[in-house]
């Protein structure tokens, strides 16, 4: 079946199988591999994207459900003139190790700061509770989000 959606500000058409996820469509049909595929059950958050401005796991959205809707992936987060403040802060704070969880965490952190520019530590932990990282122990990631909050 054919779907039409806006991804990172651009109109796209894609031929998808009825049972496939938005994550599969983004990665395999639209050539956007930034959103990562890991658990496929909404546990790990590495496929986090914004669907009509709402943070979701792309693996739990049917591609067909995104028909006519707007998606922002990690590829579309940054303004044209440089990285997103969260991306910059991840670099500065050393919040990236293997990097697999990073795109999802960047999207989730950007979503948090868009709604709550100066989060408390509790708010920060709760907002990122759906994004698993097996390398860092999270301390540097939280540092990065605090840094981004302070910078904006």
């Amino acid at each position, binding site marked *: *079946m054919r779907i039409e959606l806006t991804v990172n500000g651009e109109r796209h058409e894609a031929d998808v*199988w*009825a*049972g496939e*996820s938005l994550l599969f469509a983004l990665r395999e049909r639209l050539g956007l591999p930034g959103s990562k595929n890991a658990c*496929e*059950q*909404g*546990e790990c*958050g590495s496929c*986090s994207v914004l669907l009509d401005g*709402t*943070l*979701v*796991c792309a*693996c*739990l*959205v*049917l591609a*067909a*459900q995104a*028909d006519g809707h707007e998606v922002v992936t990690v590829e579309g987060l940054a303004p044209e003139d440089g990285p997103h403040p969260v991306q910059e802060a991840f670099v500065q704070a050393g919040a990236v190790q293997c990097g697999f969880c990073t795109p999802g965490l960047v999207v*989730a952190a950007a979503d948090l700061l868009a709604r709550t520019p100066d989060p408390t530590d509790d708010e920060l932990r*709760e*907002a990122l*509770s*759906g*994004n698993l990282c097996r390398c860092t122990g999270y301390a540097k990631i939280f540092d990065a989000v605090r840094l981004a909050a302070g910078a904006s």
Partner: protein
Amino acid sequence: MDVLTPRTLDEALRLRAETADAWPIQGGTDVMVELNFDRARPRVVLNLNEVAELRGFARENGTLRLGAGLTYTECRRELGETLPALAEAARTVGSPQIQNRGTIGGNLGTASPAGDALPPLLVEEAEVELAGPAGRRTLPLEEFLVGPKQNALAEDELIVAVHVRPSGARQTFMKVGPRNAMVIAVASLALAVDRERGEIRAAYGSAGPVPRLVRAPLDEADGFPDRVAEAASPIDDVRGTAAYRRHALRVLTARALERCAA
């Protein structure tokens, strides 16, 4: 496999009646896991995302009508004052990503013994509104939940809404799991101390084939933790033992009573 995307409730009900084996999908947090792992390959998926009548909630003469498509995030943000136990439960469902997509209607449709929205709705004596070719019917949530992952929904019906008359009683929701975030309940409990009606109501989850309501007069609060633990019919499974679940319910009930009495 095919996806049907109705734009109105009437259209959704017509499609549902025409394709009895269709799987309704709203937030996808349960259905997509089945599809992603190829555990099921439904012939037709009925995508309810575009049906505006299923979204949001409304107040009608002291009753709240929660659309089946009401998300956990909306419950958290909008219902903290009127249905505090439900709002608390919504906050414990998965992650923000899951809360943004998962819905009350989906929790009812899946009818898991561990469904977090179910105990808070039971203590508020919620009713479920179903629609099908024969029209609408409403039945108490207790009757809607008939077994583990089994409900009273007919093949040609859709869950449309949940009706609740907020009791105003002090109430809370608690759950036990291996950690604070992202857990399926090993045991859960919603409890309301309803002074107006002189009774305590508690509903447990993950401690029997379906979440169940237990009542007692206010003056029997002392024995209530034991009563809830005895009313449950838990099993041993990968997440915990029956004995642990009974123990947890006893402890949670005592804590919830304390919290709601203060």
